[in-house]
C-alpha cells in the first residue's frame, strides 16, 4: 500500500522469566506480543482492545520503542524505528508520543503546567525564550485548559484537567502518531466524554494517527475507525469499528461484545450472553494451536494443533479462526 503510514511486520516482544540470584537461569518466556502485523494510514484512529494481559499495552510500547521488539520491524513514515539508536532515535521521537492511563502518576508534581509544557516544546527544537509563553498558551488553548491555569501545579487540577495537560504535553512536539494507553479509564463517566471528544477533535484537525488502547469496547467503538482485538499476544480480529462491534466474526470477539453491559434495561435483559469459561490463560505458557481454543465453544481437534492466520472474510474485516465459514 503506497499510503501506509505505520507498518508492523511480524512484531514479537518476548520477555524472559528468570529465577535465581547468582546463577540466573531462564525458566520461561512471556510472549506478550507474538507476531503482530498491521498497516495504518495517516490520520487513522485504531482501537486496540483486549483483556488484561493480552499484550495491548506492550504492543503500544513496542511501536514507540519503549520496549525493543524481539523480532519483526516497526516502520513509521518510511523509517524503520527499531533500527534507530541513540541520537537518531531521540530525534525520531518527535514524531510519536504517548498518553498514559494515570494522569496523577505521569505528571511531575513539582512542575507547573508552564514548566511541563515548555520543557516538552523545547525538547526537540530550539525555541527563543520570548516565544515560549505564546507557544504554551496556544497549546493550552488547543486542549481546552484555561489560560489562568498556566502557573498551577498538577495537584490543583482534577483528573480530567490533568489528562488534558498530558495530552498537551504529547502534542507539544507536533507528533504524527499518538498512542493513548487507556487514557480515560481512570476518569469518571462525565469526564470521559470530554476527553474522548477532545482526542477525536485533535485527530481530525491535526491529521493525527491515533492508536487508542482500551479494555472498554464501547469507548473504542465510538472513537476508532478500525478496531483490532487482541488475545494472548495475537490479533484475532481486525476491521471497521462498527462491523467488529455489530457483526463480530471471531468467537472471542463475539463473547467480548456480548459481555459488555448495555445501559438499556430492555435490551440488556433480553439478549443472550455468551459466557466464556474460565480466565484468560497465562501468556507464559499459552496453549498450542489457536490461543483461544480452551475457552472456545466451537473448538474442534484441529484447533489444538493449527495456528490460524488472520484472513479477510468480509471486505476490510479479518479474523483468525479456522472454522469461521462453518460457524458464522
Amino acid at each position, binding site marked *: 500500500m503506497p499510503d501506509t503510514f505505520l507498518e508492523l511486520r511480524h512484531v514479537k516482544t518476548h520477555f524472559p522469566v528468570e529465577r535465581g540470584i547468582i546463577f540466573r537461569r531462564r525458566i520461561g518466556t512471556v510472549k506478550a506480543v507474538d507476531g503482530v502485523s498491521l498497516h495504518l494510514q495517516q490520520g487513522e484512529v485504531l482501537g486496540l482492545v483486549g483483556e488484561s494481559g493480552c499484550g495491548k499495552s506492550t504492543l503500544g510500547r513496542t511501536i514507540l520503542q519503549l520496549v525493543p521488539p524481539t523480532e519483526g520491524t516497526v516502520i513509521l513514515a518510511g523509517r524503520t524505528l527499531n533500527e534507530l539508536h541513540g541520537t537518531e532515535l531521540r530525534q525520531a521521537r518527535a514524531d510519536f508520543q504517548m498518553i498514559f492511563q494515570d494522569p496523577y502518576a505521569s505528571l511531575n508534581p513539582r512542575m507547573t503546567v508552564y514548566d511541563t509544557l515548555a520543557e516538552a516544546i523545547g525538547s526537540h527544537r530550539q525555541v527563543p525564550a520570548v516565544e515560549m509563553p505564546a507557544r504554551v498558551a496556544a497549546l493550552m488553548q488547543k486542549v481546552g485548559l484555561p489560560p489562568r491555569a498556566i502557573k498551577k501545579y498538577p495537584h490543583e487540577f482534577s483528573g480530567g484537567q490533568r489528562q488534558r495537560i498530558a495530552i498537551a504535553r504529547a502534542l507539544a512536539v507536533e507528533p504524527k502518531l499518538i498512542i493513548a494507553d487507556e487514557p480515560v479509564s481512570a476518569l*469518571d*463517566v*462525565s*469526564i470521559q*466524554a470530554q476527553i474522548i471528544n477532545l482526542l477525536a477533535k485533535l485527530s481530525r484537525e491535526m491529521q493525527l494517527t491515533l492508536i487508542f488502547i482500551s479494555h472498554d469496547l464501547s469507548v473504542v467503538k465510538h472513537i476508532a475507525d478500525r478496531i483490532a482485538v487482541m488475545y494472548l499476544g495475537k490479533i484475532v480480529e481486525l476491521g471497521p469499528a462498527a462491523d467488529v462491534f455489530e457483526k463480530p466474526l471471531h468467537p472471542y470477539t463475539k463473547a467480548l461484545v456480548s459481555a459488555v453491559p*448495555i*445501559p438499556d434495561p430492555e435490551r440488556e435483559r433480553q439478549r443472550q450472553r455468551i*459466557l466464556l469459561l474460565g*480466565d484468560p490463560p497465562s501468556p507464559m505458557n499459552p496453549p498450542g494451536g489457536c490461543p483461544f481454543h480452551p475457552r472456545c465453544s466451537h473448538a474442534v481437534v484441529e484447533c489444538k494443533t493449527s495456528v490460524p492466520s488472520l484472513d479477510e472474510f468480509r471486505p476490510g474485516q479479518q479474523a483468525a479462526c479456522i472454522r469461521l465459514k462453518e460457524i458464522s
Partner: protein
Amino acid sequence: MLLKVTNLKTSFHTRNGVVRAVDGVSFVLGAGETLGIVGESGSGKSVTCYSIMGLIPQPPGRIEGGQAMFGDMDLLRCGPEELRRIRGARISMIFQDPMTSLNPYLRIEDQLIEPLLIHEKIERSSAIKRAIAALEEVGVPDAAQRIRSYPHEFSGGMRQRVMIAMALITKPQLLIADEPTTALDVTVQAQILELIKKLQRERGMAVIWVTHDLGVVAGFCDRVLVMYAGRIVESAPTQQIFKHPLHPYNRALQKSIPALQAKGAELYTIPGAPPDLARKPEGCAFAPRCEFAADKCRAGEMPLKEAEQGHATACWRVLDGEIKL
C-alpha cells in the same frame, strides 16, 4: 422491609474542613430486592454502604445523624458486639479489590471457615465441608484441592469468587457489593454477575450493588438510586431511570455514555467537575453544571420528592413542571 435508612449523614473532619460525604440519604430495601446505587467517584455511594456496615473509621469520619433500621435494630447506634453478630452473618459485604480483602498469609480454607466458626459455633471439620460446598457453588473447579491454596495462587476472577463464597457462606439476608467487578475484565465480570444473580434467585437474598457503570445496573437491578455530591438526586425502578429520567444529572450522565450514542457523533459533555464536598455550593449541588439551573436552584436545598408513583427526584424545576427532560 429489610433495611430502612433515614436521613443518614456521614462526614469526615479533615484539614481542609468538614467533608460532608453523605448528606441526608434515605431509602428502603425490601427482602430479596436488588438496589443499585450509581454515581461518580466522591458521590458518597461507598460511604453510604460503609456507614451502614459500621466500617467508617472514626475519627476522621463521623456519623452525624440518621437511622439505619435492620429489623428492629439501628445499625448506626448498636454497639460493636451487636454489630459483630450481624456483620458476616446476616449482612455481608464484598469489595472492589479481592486481593486486598483476602489475607495473603492464610490458606483460603482458614479464611472461608472463619465466619462459620464465629457465627455458628460448629466443628472445624464440618465447617470445611461447608466451605468446599460453598466454593463449588461459586464455580471454583477442584474445590476440595484448591481450598488448600493461598490467595496469590488464584486469578483475579477466582479470587472474587472466593470472596463471594466467603460472604455468602453464612447465608446472609443482605449482600452489599461495592464495585466488585470494576477491577475485572468484562468476560469475567459477566461470569460474576450471572453467578450472583443465580445465587440471589436461589436464596431470596437482597443485594445493594454499588457501581459507576450504568450498563451493569440496567441488567442487574430492580431499583436504582442516583447519587451526586452526597445526596440521592433520583430514585426509581430501573426501567424508569433509563426511559424516563427526572433529574438533569441522570439525563446528562446517560447522554454522555458512548454506548448509547450514534457512532462518531460528538459526545454530550457535562461542563465542569463535581464540587468539592468541603465547600458545597448553596442549594442544589448540581446547579453550577446544570443547563436548566434557575435562580431558585441556587437558593435552597431540595429534598427528594416523589414525582410519580415510586419515582422520586430532587429537582425543583422538574417537580414544578417547568422543564421536561
